[in-house]
Protein backbone atom coordinates (compact mmCIF):
# COMPACT_ATOMS: atom_id res chain seq x y z
CA UNK A 1 0.00 0.00 0.00
CA UNK A 2 1.44 3.39 -0.94
CA UNK A 3 0.56 4.91 2.44
CA UNK A 4 2.95 2.49 4.13
CA UNK A 5 5.96 3.83 2.30
CA UNK A 6 4.91 7.35 3.22
CA UNK A 7 4.71 6.26 6.83
CA UNK A 8 8.34 5.20 6.96
CA UNK A 9 9.55 8.63 5.93
CA UNK A 10 8.66 11.40 8.36
CA UNK A 11 9.65 14.06 5.83
CA UNK A 12 6.80 12.83 3.66
CA UNK A 13 4.38 11.70 6.38
CA UNK A 14 4.01 15.02 8.20
CA UNK A 15 3.30 17.02 5.02
CA UNK A 16 0.81 14.31 4.02
CA UNK A 17 -0.91 14.56 7.41
CA UNK A 18 -0.95 18.36 7.18
CA UNK A 19 -2.52 18.28 3.72
CA UNK A 20 -5.18 15.74 4.74
CA UNK A 21 -6.12 17.81 7.78
CA UNK A 22 -6.05 21.07 5.83
CA UNK A 23 -8.39 19.69 3.16
CA UNK A 24 -10.65 18.27 5.87
CA UNK A 25 -10.62 21.56 7.73
CA UNK A 26 -11.49 23.57 4.63
CA UNK A 27 -14.30 21.16 3.82
CA UNK A 28 -15.58 21.49 7.38
CA UNK A 29 -15.36 25.26 7.11
CA UNK A 30 -17.16 25.24 3.78
CA UNK A 31 -19.96 23.03 4.96
CA UNK A 32 -20.87 25.04 8.04
CA UNK A 33 -24.56 25.65 8.29
CA UNK A 34 -25.77 29.20 7.87
CA UNK A 35 -27.66 29.53 11.12
CA UNK A 36 -29.78 32.52 10.23
CA UNK A 37 -31.28 31.43 6.93
CA UNK A 38 -34.68 30.50 8.27
CA UNK A 39 -36.05 33.71 6.77
CA UNK A 40 -39.49 33.38 5.21
CA UNK A 41 -39.48 32.56 1.52
CA UNK A 42 -39.48 35.64 -0.64
CA UNK A 43 -41.08 35.99 -3.98
CA UNK A 44 -38.53 36.63 -6.70
CA UNK A 45 -38.61 38.93 -9.68
CA UNK A 46 -37.94 36.11 -12.14
CA UNK A 47 -40.07 34.35 -14.70
CA UNK A 48 -42.00 31.49 -13.20
CA UNK A 49 -41.89 32.79 -9.63
CA UNK A 50 -44.74 34.54 -7.79
CA UNK A 51 -44.57 38.31 -8.27
CA UNK A 52 -43.50 40.00 -5.02
CA UNK A 53 -46.47 41.88 -3.63
CA UNK A 54 -46.33 45.59 -2.83
CA UNK A 55 -48.70 48.32 -1.66
CA UNK A 56 -48.10 51.95 -2.68
CA UNK A 57 -50.07 55.18 -2.80
CA UNK A 58 -51.42 56.32 -6.12
CA UNK A 59 -51.52 60.00 -7.19
CA UNK A 60 -54.75 60.56 -5.24
CA UNK A 61 -53.21 59.18 -2.07
CA UNK A 62 -55.09 55.89 -2.03
CA UNK A 63 -53.13 52.73 -1.28
CA UNK A 64 -53.08 50.21 -4.11
CA UNK A 65 -51.64 46.71 -3.75
CA UNK A 66 -50.56 44.32 -6.48
CA UNK A 67 -52.56 41.60 -4.72
CA UNK A 68 -55.75 43.63 -5.33
CA UNK A 69 -55.48 42.63 -8.98
CA UNK A 70 -55.12 38.87 -8.53
CA UNK A 71 -57.17 37.27 -11.29
CA UNK A 72 -56.19 39.90 -13.82
CA UNK A 73 -53.15 40.21 -16.03
CA UNK A 74 -50.95 42.98 -14.64
CA UNK A 75 -48.20 44.93 -16.40
CA UNK A 76 -45.96 46.40 -13.71
CA UNK A 77 -43.93 49.16 -15.36
CA UNK A 78 -41.15 50.85 -13.39
CA UNK A 79 -40.39 54.30 -14.75
CA UNK A 80 -39.06 57.79 -14.06
CA UNK A 81 -39.95 61.04 -15.77
CA UNK A 82 -36.33 61.85 -16.69
CA UNK A 83 -35.84 58.52 -18.46
CA UNK A 84 -36.25 58.85 -22.22
CA UNK A 85 -37.23 55.25 -23.07
CA UNK A 86 -39.76 55.29 -20.20
CA UNK A 87 -41.41 58.41 -21.61
CA UNK A 88 -41.34 56.94 -25.09
CA UNK A 89 -43.15 53.74 -24.16
CA UNK A 90 -45.94 55.36 -22.12
CA UNK A 91 -48.26 55.92 -25.12
CA UNK A 92 -47.95 52.21 -26.00
CA UNK A 93 -48.86 51.23 -22.44
CA UNK A 94 -51.83 53.62 -22.50
CA UNK A 95 -53.06 52.26 -25.84
CA UNK A 96 -52.80 48.64 -24.72
CA UNK A 97 -54.58 49.53 -21.48
CA UNK A 98 -57.40 51.34 -23.29
CA UNK A 99 -57.84 48.43 -25.61
CA UNK A 100 -57.57 45.44 -23.26
CA UNK A 101 -58.73 46.66 -19.83
CA UNK A 102 -62.11 45.14 -20.59
CA UNK A 103 -60.44 41.74 -21.11
CA UNK A 104 -58.84 41.87 -17.68
CA UNK A 105 -55.62 43.83 -18.23
CA UNK A 106 -54.24 46.22 -15.61
CA UNK A 107 -51.23 48.49 -16.04
CA UNK A 108 -49.50 49.71 -12.90
CA UNK A 109 -47.06 52.52 -13.59
CA UNK A 110 -44.72 52.44 -10.62
CA UNK A 111 -42.86 55.74 -10.56
CA UNK A 112 -39.42 55.31 -9.08
CA UNK A 113 -40.05 58.41 -6.97
CA UNK A 114 -36.91 57.97 -4.93
CA UNK A 115 -34.90 58.88 -8.03
CA UNK A 116 -37.48 61.26 -9.56
CA UNK A 117 -39.44 64.31 -8.43
CA UNK A 118 -43.08 63.82 -7.58
CA UNK A 119 -43.97 67.10 -9.30
CA UNK A 120 -42.24 66.05 -12.53
CA UNK A 121 -43.99 62.71 -12.42
CA UNK A 122 -47.40 64.34 -11.94
CA UNK A 123 -46.94 66.80 -14.75
CA UNK A 124 -45.73 64.05 -17.11
CA UNK A 125 -48.82 61.98 -16.29
CA UNK A 126 -51.09 64.97 -16.88
CA UNK A 127 -49.40 65.93 -20.18
CA UNK A 128 -49.78 62.42 -21.54
CA UNK A 129 -53.28 61.92 -20.11
CA UNK A 130 -52.34 58.57 -18.61
CA UNK A 131 -55.41 56.90 -17.13
CA UNK A 132 -53.95 53.72 -15.62
CA UNK A 133 -52.93 53.75 -11.93
CA UNK A 134 -49.64 55.55 -11.29
CA UNK A 135 -48.05 54.50 -7.99
CA UNK A 136 -45.37 56.41 -6.12
CA UNK A 137 -42.46 54.30 -4.86
CA UNK A 138 -41.18 56.96 -2.48
CA UNK A 139 -39.18 54.64 -0.23
CA UNK A 140 -37.61 52.76 -3.15
CA UNK A 141 -39.20 49.54 -1.81
CA UNK A 142 -40.48 48.18 -5.09
CA UNK A 143 -37.25 49.03 -6.91
CA UNK A 144 -35.37 47.00 -4.36
CA UNK A 145 -37.75 44.05 -4.22
CA UNK A 146 -37.80 43.88 -7.99
CA UNK A 147 -34.01 44.37 -8.11
CA UNK A 148 -34.34 47.30 -10.47
CA UNK A 149 -31.13 47.70 -12.48
CA UNK A 150 -32.16 49.85 -15.38
CA UNK A 151 -35.20 51.94 -16.31
CA UNK A 152 -37.68 51.13 -17.65
CA UNK A 153 -38.24 47.61 -16.37
CA UNK A 154 -41.49 45.85 -17.04
CA UNK A 155 -42.85 42.75 -15.33
CA UNK A 156 -45.84 40.91 -16.72
CA UNK A 157 -47.84 39.04 -14.11
CA UNK A 158 -50.44 36.45 -15.04
CA UNK A 159 -53.88 35.91 -13.52
CA UNK A 160 -52.50 33.56 -10.88
CA UNK A 161 -49.86 36.04 -9.73
CA UNK A 162 -46.84 34.45 -11.44
CA UNK A 163 -44.33 36.57 -13.33
CA UNK A 164 -44.41 35.43 -16.94
CA UNK A 165 -42.16 37.95 -18.65
CA UNK A 166 -39.41 40.31 -17.54
CA UNK A 167 -38.62 43.06 -20.02
CA UNK A 168 -35.57 45.08 -19.09
CA UNK A 169 -35.04 48.29 -21.03
CA UNK A 170 -37.21 49.95 -23.63
CA UNK A 171 -38.97 51.58 -25.22
CA UNK A 172 -41.42 48.71 -25.55
CA UNK A 173 -43.63 48.88 -28.57
CA UNK A 174 -47.30 48.06 -28.61
CA UNK A 175 -46.65 44.89 -30.59
CA UNK A 176 -44.15 43.59 -28.03
CA UNK A 177 -46.56 44.30 -25.18
CA UNK A 178 -49.47 42.67 -26.97
CA UNK A 179 -47.41 39.60 -27.86
CA UNK A 180 -46.51 39.14 -24.23
CA UNK A 181 -50.02 39.50 -22.81
CA UNK A 182 -52.17 37.94 -25.52
CA UNK A 183 -51.81 34.33 -24.29
CA UNK A 184 -52.11 35.37 -20.64
CA UNK A 185 -55.39 37.18 -21.23
CA UNK A 186 -56.71 34.05 -22.94
CA UNK A 187 -56.32 32.06 -19.69
CA UNK A 188 -59.52 31.63 -17.72
CA UNK A 189 -59.68 34.32 -15.02
Amino acid sequence: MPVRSLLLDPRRWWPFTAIVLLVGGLWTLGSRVATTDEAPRQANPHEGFPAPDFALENLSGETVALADYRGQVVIVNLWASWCGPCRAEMPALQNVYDDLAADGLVVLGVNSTAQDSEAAARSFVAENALTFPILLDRADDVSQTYRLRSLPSTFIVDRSGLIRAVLIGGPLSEAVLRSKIEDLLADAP
Partner: protein
Amino acid sequence: MLPTLQIGPLAMPTGPLLLLLGVWLGTWLAEREADRLGLNRDTVSALALLGLIVGLVGARLGYAARYSEAYAADPLSLISNNLATFSLPEGLAAGLLAATLYGRRQGLPLRRTLDALAPLAGVLSGAAALAQLASGDGFGAPAQLPWSLYLWDDYRHPSQLYALLAALGVFGLWWRWGRAGFAGFGFLLMIAGLAATTVFLEAFRGDSLLLTGGWRSAQVGGLIVLAAALVWMRRWAESAQPGQSRT
Protein backbone atom coordinates in the same frame (compact mmCIF):
# COMPACT_ATOMS: atom_id res chain seq x y z
CA MET B 1 -25.45 37.38 -10.57
CA LEU B 2 -24.56 40.48 -12.49
CA PRO B 3 -27.31 40.99 -15.04
CA THR B 4 -26.11 44.39 -16.19
CA LEU B 5 -22.64 45.85 -16.53
CA GLN B 6 -22.56 49.54 -15.65
CA ILE B 7 -19.79 51.21 -17.62
CA GLY B 8 -20.05 54.90 -16.86
CA PRO B 9 -23.54 55.98 -17.87
CA LEU B 10 -23.98 52.91 -20.06
CA ALA B 11 -25.88 49.90 -18.70
CA MET B 12 -25.06 46.85 -20.81
CA PRO B 13 -26.87 43.55 -20.34
CA THR B 14 -24.09 41.14 -19.34
CA GLY B 15 -25.61 38.05 -20.95
CA PRO B 16 -25.76 39.25 -24.57
CA LEU B 17 -22.34 40.85 -24.10
CA LEU B 18 -20.86 37.50 -23.11
CA LEU B 19 -22.55 35.78 -26.05
CA LEU B 20 -21.09 38.41 -28.37
CA LEU B 21 -17.67 37.74 -26.91
CA GLY B 22 -18.29 34.04 -27.49
CA VAL B 23 -19.15 34.66 -31.14
CA TRP B 24 -15.99 36.69 -31.57
CA LEU B 25 -13.72 34.13 -29.91
CA GLY B 26 -15.46 31.18 -31.54
CA THR B 27 -15.25 32.69 -35.01
CA TRP B 28 -11.59 33.44 -34.53
CA LEU B 29 -10.97 29.80 -33.56
CA ALA B 30 -13.07 28.62 -36.51
CA GLU B 31 -10.89 30.71 -38.83
CA ARG B 32 -7.74 29.14 -37.40
CA GLU B 33 -9.26 25.71 -37.93
CA ALA B 34 -10.23 26.63 -41.47
CA ASP B 35 -6.60 27.52 -42.17
CA ARG B 36 -5.42 24.26 -40.70
CA LEU B 37 -7.94 22.28 -42.76
CA GLY B 38 -7.03 24.06 -45.97
CA LEU B 39 -10.28 26.00 -46.28
CA ASN B 40 -10.66 29.66 -47.10
CA ARG B 41 -10.82 31.35 -43.72
CA ASP B 42 -12.86 34.30 -44.93
CA THR B 43 -15.49 32.06 -46.48
CA VAL B 44 -15.80 30.06 -43.27
CA SER B 45 -16.12 33.11 -41.05
CA ALA B 46 -18.56 34.68 -43.50
CA LEU B 47 -20.62 31.51 -43.32
CA ALA B 48 -20.60 31.59 -39.53
CA LEU B 49 -21.58 35.25 -39.33
CA LEU B 50 -24.20 34.89 -42.05
CA GLY B 51 -25.72 31.96 -40.17
CA LEU B 52 -25.81 33.96 -36.93
CA ILE B 53 -27.30 37.08 -38.51
CA VAL B 54 -29.92 35.21 -40.54
CA GLY B 55 -30.62 33.21 -37.37
CA LEU B 56 -31.29 36.39 -35.41
CA VAL B 57 -33.55 37.77 -38.11
CA GLY B 58 -35.35 34.45 -38.41
CA ALA B 59 -35.86 34.28 -34.66
CA ARG B 60 -37.44 37.75 -34.63
CA LEU B 61 -39.63 37.02 -37.66
CA GLY B 62 -40.65 33.68 -36.17
CA TYR B 63 -41.67 35.43 -32.98
CA ALA B 64 -43.60 38.09 -34.88
CA ALA B 65 -45.35 35.44 -36.96
CA ARG B 66 -46.75 33.90 -33.79
CA TYR B 67 -48.27 37.29 -32.87
CA SER B 68 -48.95 38.38 -36.41
CA GLU B 69 -51.93 40.60 -35.61
CA ALA B 70 -50.01 42.74 -33.14
CA TYR B 71 -46.98 43.02 -35.42
CA ALA B 72 -49.04 43.71 -38.56
CA ALA B 73 -50.47 46.77 -36.81
CA ASP B 74 -47.02 47.92 -35.72
CA PRO B 75 -44.40 46.54 -38.14
CA LEU B 76 -41.67 48.85 -36.86
CA SER B 77 -41.57 46.70 -33.70
CA LEU B 78 -39.68 44.12 -35.74
CA ILE B 79 -36.63 46.34 -35.35
CA SER B 80 -36.31 46.44 -31.59
CA ASN B 81 -33.45 45.72 -29.26
CA ASN B 82 -35.76 43.70 -27.06
CA LEU B 83 -34.19 40.38 -26.21
CA ALA B 84 -37.42 38.76 -25.09
CA THR B 85 -38.95 38.74 -28.56
CA PHE B 86 -36.92 36.05 -30.27
CA SER B 87 -38.06 32.53 -31.04
CA LEU B 88 -35.29 29.94 -30.92
CA PRO B 89 -36.59 27.16 -33.24
CA GLU B 90 -37.27 29.48 -36.16
CA GLY B 91 -33.92 31.17 -35.60
CA LEU B 92 -32.04 27.87 -35.62
CA ALA B 93 -33.80 26.70 -38.76
CA ALA B 94 -33.19 29.95 -40.61
CA GLY B 95 -29.54 30.17 -39.57
CA LEU B 96 -28.77 26.58 -40.53
CA LEU B 97 -30.55 26.94 -43.85
CA ALA B 98 -28.73 30.13 -44.73
CA ALA B 99 -25.35 28.68 -43.76
CA THR B 100 -26.01 25.51 -45.75
CA LEU B 101 -27.04 27.39 -48.87
CA TYR B 102 -24.09 29.76 -48.61
CA GLY B 103 -21.68 26.87 -48.05
CA ARG B 104 -23.01 25.03 -51.11
CA ARG B 105 -22.77 28.11 -53.31
CA GLN B 106 -19.23 28.73 -52.18
CA GLY B 107 -18.41 25.05 -52.78
CA LEU B 108 -17.28 24.45 -49.19
CA PRO B 109 -16.82 20.73 -48.42
CA LEU B 110 -19.50 19.83 -45.83
CA ARG B 111 -17.57 17.72 -43.35
CA ARG B 112 -14.41 19.76 -43.22
CA THR B 113 -16.41 22.96 -42.86
CA LEU B 114 -18.30 21.45 -39.96
CA ASP B 115 -14.96 20.47 -38.42
CA ALA B 116 -13.81 24.06 -38.70
CA LEU B 117 -16.99 25.29 -37.03
CA ALA B 118 -16.76 22.81 -34.12
CA PRO B 119 -14.89 25.19 -31.78
CA LEU B 120 -17.55 27.85 -32.36
CA ALA B 121 -20.18 25.44 -31.01
CA GLY B 122 -18.06 24.68 -27.95
CA VAL B 123 -17.26 28.30 -27.19
CA LEU B 124 -20.87 29.43 -27.66
CA SER B 125 -22.00 26.71 -25.30
CA GLY B 126 -19.58 27.94 -22.63
CA ALA B 127 -20.52 31.57 -23.24
CA ALA B 128 -24.21 30.67 -22.85
CA ALA B 129 -23.46 29.09 -19.47
CA LEU B 130 -21.62 32.25 -18.36
CA ALA B 131 -24.48 34.41 -19.64
CA GLN B 132 -26.96 32.38 -17.59
CA LEU B 133 -24.73 32.70 -14.56
CA ALA B 134 -24.78 36.47 -15.00
CA SER B 135 -28.54 36.70 -15.43
CA GLY B 136 -29.54 33.97 -12.99
CA ASP B 137 -31.31 32.00 -15.72
CA GLY B 138 -30.88 28.29 -16.19
CA PHE B 139 -30.85 27.93 -12.43
CA GLY B 140 -30.39 24.66 -10.57
CA ALA B 141 -32.72 22.51 -8.50
CA PRO B 142 -32.74 23.22 -4.77
CA ALA B 143 -29.95 21.28 -3.09
CA GLN B 144 -27.89 21.77 0.00
CA LEU B 145 -24.36 20.99 -1.00
CA PRO B 146 -21.20 22.64 0.21
CA TRP B 147 -20.85 24.13 -3.28
CA SER B 148 -24.47 25.27 -3.57
CA LEU B 149 -25.27 28.70 -4.96
CA TYR B 150 -27.81 30.92 -3.19
CA LEU B 151 -30.10 32.09 -5.97
CA TRP B 152 -33.79 32.87 -6.19
CA ASP B 153 -34.31 32.39 -2.49
CA ASP B 154 -32.87 28.91 -2.21
CA TYR B 155 -29.61 27.00 -2.08
CA ARG B 156 -29.33 25.43 -5.51
CA HIS B 157 -27.07 23.33 -7.68
CA PRO B 158 -24.75 25.79 -9.47
CA SER B 159 -26.09 24.38 -12.73
CA GLN B 160 -24.58 27.20 -14.78
CA LEU B 161 -21.13 26.36 -13.40
CA TYR B 162 -21.69 22.68 -14.14
CA ALA B 163 -22.57 23.67 -17.72
CA LEU B 164 -19.49 25.88 -17.98
CA LEU B 165 -17.20 23.10 -16.74
CA ALA B 166 -18.85 20.65 -19.12
CA ALA B 167 -18.34 23.00 -22.06
CA LEU B 168 -14.68 23.45 -21.09
CA GLY B 169 -14.27 19.69 -20.74
CA VAL B 170 -15.82 18.92 -24.10
CA PHE B 171 -13.76 21.66 -25.69
CA GLY B 172 -10.63 20.13 -24.16
CA LEU B 173 -11.61 16.71 -25.46
CA TRP B 174 -12.06 18.12 -28.90
CA TRP B 175 -8.79 20.05 -28.72
CA ARG B 176 -6.86 16.93 -27.73
CA TRP B 177 -8.48 14.27 -29.91
CA GLY B 178 -11.02 15.90 -32.21
CA ARG B 179 -8.63 17.61 -34.57
CA ALA B 180 -7.26 14.45 -36.18
CA GLY B 181 -9.05 11.61 -37.87
CA PHE B 182 -11.54 11.45 -40.69
CA ALA B 183 -13.37 14.51 -41.97
CA GLY B 184 -16.36 15.33 -39.79
CA PHE B 185 -15.03 13.51 -36.71
CA GLY B 186 -14.14 16.68 -34.81
CA PHE B 187 -17.56 18.18 -35.38
CA LEU B 188 -19.42 15.02 -34.36
CA LEU B 189 -17.21 14.59 -31.31
CA MET B 190 -18.05 18.14 -30.19
CA ILE B 191 -21.78 17.64 -30.80
CA ALA B 192 -21.86 14.24 -29.11
CA GLY B 193 -19.97 15.63 -26.14
CA LEU B 194 -22.25 18.63 -25.73
CA ALA B 195 -25.34 16.43 -26.10
CA ALA B 196 -24.10 13.87 -23.60
CA THR B 197 -23.28 16.51 -20.98
CA THR B 198 -26.67 18.13 -21.54
CA VAL B 199 -28.42 14.81 -20.90
CA PHE B 200 -26.38 14.39 -17.73
CA LEU B 201 -26.54 17.92 -16.36
CA GLU B 202 -30.15 18.75 -17.14
CA ALA B 203 -31.05 16.49 -14.21
CA PHE B 204 -29.67 19.16 -11.87
CA ARG B 205 -31.68 22.03 -13.32
CA GLY B 206 -34.57 23.62 -11.48
CA ASP B 207 -36.22 25.22 -14.48
CA SER B 208 -36.44 22.36 -16.97
CA LEU B 209 -39.12 22.57 -19.60
CA LEU B 210 -41.14 19.40 -19.03
CA LEU B 211 -42.95 17.10 -21.40
CA THR B 212 -45.93 15.10 -20.19
CA GLY B 213 -44.90 12.51 -17.65
CA GLY B 214 -42.29 14.82 -16.18
CA TRP B 215 -39.65 14.05 -18.82
CA ARG B 216 -37.19 16.91 -19.22
CA SER B 217 -37.37 18.06 -22.82
CA ALA B 218 -33.67 18.98 -22.97
CA GLN B 219 -32.70 15.45 -21.98
CA VAL B 220 -34.97 13.87 -24.57
CA GLY B 221 -33.65 16.24 -27.21
CA GLY B 222 -30.08 15.65 -26.09
CA LEU B 223 -30.50 11.89 -26.39
CA ILE B 224 -31.79 12.24 -29.94
CA VAL B 225 -28.86 14.46 -30.94
CA LEU B 226 -26.44 12.09 -29.20
CA ALA B 227 -27.86 9.09 -31.05
CA ALA B 228 -27.66 10.92 -34.36
CA ALA B 229 -24.07 12.00 -33.72
CA LEU B 230 -22.96 8.46 -32.82
CA VAL B 231 -24.67 6.95 -35.87
CA TRP B 232 -23.19 9.52 -38.22
CA MET B 233 -19.80 9.10 -36.64
CA ARG B 234 -19.78 5.45 -37.70
CA ARG B 235 -21.15 6.28 -41.15
CA TRP B 236 -18.56 8.92 -41.88
CA ALA B 237 -15.83 6.72 -40.47
CA GLU B 238 -16.93 3.96 -42.84
CA SER B 239 -17.08 6.20 -45.90
CA ALA B 240 -13.64 7.60 -45.03
CA GLN B 241 -12.06 4.22 -44.42
CA PRO B 242 -10.80 3.12 -47.85
CA GLY B 243 -9.19 6.45 -48.79
CA GLN B 244 -8.07 6.99 -45.13
CA SER B 245 -7.93 10.41 -43.55
CA ARG B 246 -9.88 13.37 -44.87
CA THR B 247 -12.26 13.15 -47.87
